[in-house]
Each structure stands twice: as structure tokens, then as C-alpha cells.
């Protein structure tokens, strides 16, 4: 059973969003997603300042098994990326909601957050997928 922290919001495509209280959010992939993908070996993150759109590709995570696109759960500007993933992509496996965060995005449309799922809904969704 995968870990789904209750304070976060979730996309259907298995990204999580954590509000930072300053109009920005941290984004990563869920424990469920990292478990299915397996050992991470490479993460390609966008440049600082890149514009990202909700539902569009914003990063790539590669496990030994395959490369997978990460879709931005929100629209905005990338204001910080997790540089430590360059040397230690396995942080996504070890701590997907903490040290394994991927980027921070300054929201251009905070109302988008309401379209995301809470932990219960996300948990029900992955349950139904199994």
C-alpha cells in the first residue's frame, strides 16, 4: 500500500502538489508512481524561469525500466528546481514527498488547485486502477 500524505493535492497523472503559502507550489511524483517505475537513474528538469502549462510535459524521470513524462499539475513559472536529483535521482524512490521533490512553480492561476484531487480521492483512483 503506497503512502498518500493528506496535506497534498494530486493529479490524475500521479504528480503531487504542496502549497508553499507564497503563491508557489512544490511538485513531485507520488509514492505509487515511483513504486511502479522502479529505481530512478536520471531526472531531466526544466530551466529556472521556464513557463509550464497544466497538463503538459514539464520534466522526465527515467528509471532503469523506462522514461516517463511528468505533467505539470498547474500553470505558472518554474522558480526553483531540485538540483540534488542530478546526482541522486534515487531520492525520488527514497523520499518522494520530501527530498525527492522535482520543482517549485509560481502559480499563475491559483484556481487550478481546486481541480486537483485530495488524498482520499487519489487513493480511491489508484485503488480502482489496480
Amino acid at each position, binding site marked *: 500500500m503506497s503512502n498518500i500524505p493528506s496535506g497534498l493535492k494530486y493529479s490524475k497523472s*500521479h504528480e503531487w502538489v504542496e502549497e508553499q503559502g507564497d503563491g508557489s507550489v512544490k511538485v513531485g511524483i507520488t509514492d505509487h*508512481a515511483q513504486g511502479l*517505475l*522502479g*529505481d530512478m537513474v536520471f531526472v531531466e528538469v526544466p530551466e529556472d524561469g521556464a513557463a509550464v502549462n497544466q497538463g503538459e510535459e514539464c520534466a522526465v524521470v527515467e528509471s*532503469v*525500466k523506462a522514461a516517463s513524462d511528468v*505533467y505539470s499539475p498547474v500553470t505558472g513559472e518554474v522558480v526553483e528546481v531540485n538540483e540534488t536529483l542530478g546526482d541522486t535521482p534515487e531520492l525520488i*524512490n527514497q523520499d518522494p514527498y520530501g527530498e525527492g521533490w522535482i520543482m517549485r512553480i509560481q502559480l499563475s492561476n491559483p484556481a487550478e488547485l481546486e481541480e486537483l484531487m485530495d488524498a482520499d480521492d487519489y487513493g480511491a483512483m489508484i485503488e480502482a486502477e489496480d
Partner: protein
Amino acid sequence: MTLDPDSKNMARHTPLHEEHLRLGGKLVDFAGWDMPLHYGSQIDEHNRVRADAGMFDVSHMTILDLQGEETAPFLRRLLANDVGRLVPGKALYSCMLREDGGIIDDLIVYWRGDGRYRMVVNAATHDKDLDWIRAQAQPFAVSVTERCDDALIAVQGPRARDKVHGVLDEDARRTAAALAPFHAAECGPLFIARTGYTGEDGYEILVPADEAADLWRALYNGGVHPAGLGARDTLRLEAGMALYGTDMDETVTPLESALGWTVAWEPAERDFIGRAALEARRGDPALKKLVGLVLEGRGVLRGQQPVYWNGRQAGEITSGSFSPFLKKGIAFARVDAEVEGRCEVEMRGKRLTARAVRPPFVRHGKACYKA
């Protein structure tokens, strides 16, 4: 991201299926078999085989026993390598070719003495291999019997042999310990071969189905960690071993697959299937070649990525991954004959610098590729 939950269909189980479930193996369909991809971490399993010892259930592979007074002449016709080079107990790696030189499968054949040979072919090619072999065997006094009631356990790594010796009885231990690389022997109900697919020392052990779980558990208790097909794939890639169906298939010959060394041209009068086609192409400058690639920067090489050399597309990757040992992207690529040194691989619209090298990348726990 898009996740693809593995389909749960009616797959065959090996005699070790319960062991995989007990050890938390993540089972996936492989050629119609329910096989462990990993037991938690593919990279940990890979590293254990390089540094210590790991074991793989490879019971899905097809095992054929050939017997009869014309088995040797039959195999000298069937296979591009020459079983005439064998001594009793020795193994031979070979391709099995079509008349046009295309590779039907790659395999290992063991000579067990007299007219008895044992052949291990791939699981994914089971049906077409059996059809082909039985059809070619028609004119010969040879019987082809598939062994379906065994498990095959590969124990690999620098400490693999010691750990296997620790679970064998006195006679089997003495027999196994005396095996030279690429040799095999019968030890009571076991058939023990000093072969493998990882670039490390070790054994492949054929064991009757009803004794397989006991042997597996004894090895586990003796400190041999289970490893899945995921680690098997990254280990064989590092070891520079081609994978059938990925790096080669019926559309290419051994000459284009870095397997020219497995074609026994001498004696010239041996008329193996595919010989005429290979001879016609031998030395042809238009033949592509299979090379190793090492990515210089960060990233993971993957099958089908295009390879550029001197500004033009010169081939593509046949299989690629991340090398846990080298911590770099590595691959096999089929490229034009003149390609060497620095080249580029296209990945998500960008061209990244790579270097064409001669595999293997890793052998016996050491990086060994040469530019």
C-alpha cells in the same frame, strides 16, 4: 505521468513461483511466463551480482535434449558454430541461422558425451525454434526431446561458486569445483554448468522441479540474494552480451551483430545452414556493425534512439539502459561500418555526445570497454 499497470493474464509458472511470491517479487509477463522483474530494487540486485552473488530463476528458458547416432552431424549442419570443436562436458555458444543467414535464435549447446547434447534456447522463440529444429532433424537419426520438468537457476557473481559449493553434497561439490569455465557436469539429479549471462563467474544449475524450491531456499539461506529479469538485462548489457529479439533477429546475420566470432568457417567443407549467404556477405563494406555506446553526459540510452556520426544518421540503438556499475548510459547500436569514436544520440529532440566502444563494458567486476 502515464503508468502502465502490468497486465494480469494467464501466464505459466515456473517451479519457483511460490518462492518469488514469498520473497516479494514483482511478477511480470515474459514470453508467456510469470517472471520476477525484481524483488524490490533492480539496482541493488545488479550490484550484488557484481560484488557478491545473486540467483536468477531462468526456468522459462527452453531446454532440449538431443540424442542419437547422428546428433553431431545434425548439429554441425544446424548451427553456425561447430560442435566438432567440443570435448565432452564442454559448452558452445552459437547462432542458429536461416538459409539467408538471418538469426533464428542464439543458444548454448553442451556435449554430454557420445551422441548426447543438451541445448538451451530462448523462451520467446520456443515455438519457432522447435518447429525449425524438428524440421531440420528429419533426415538425421536424432531425437529431440523438450525437458519441461526442470527448473534452471543461474547463480552468478564473484562469490557465487563458493556459495553454491556450500549447499551441495560432497560428490557434487567436488565435481562442480573441478569445472573449468564453460564446462558442465551431471551431479546426481543436478546438471551444473559453469556458464552464465552476467559477465561474472558462476553456475547455471538444472534441477528437477520437485527439488528446485529446496535448492533455491538453501542458496538463499547461504547468502545468495534473488535477482530478477531486470537485473539480468542490465548485467548482460554491461557484459556485452547481445539479447535475441532486441539486438538481433531474423533480419540480420551474425556478421552485423558482433557475433562473427561465433561462426566457425573452418573446416570449409562443413555446410551449415546459412553458410552460403554469410560467405556472400563476408567483407561487404555495406554491412552494418553492432557496437557499444557510452553516453558522455548524464542520461539513459534506450532502444530505437537514432545515432548520428559526422552529421548524418548512421544507425540506431538496439538496446540501451543505465549501467548501475559505470553509472552511465550504455547501449548496443547497429551502425554503418565506418562509425568510430565520437558520435551523437538523439534523445527527446536533443543530440547528446556518446562514444562508440568495443563491448564488453564490464567483466568480472571491472570496467573494461575500449574506445
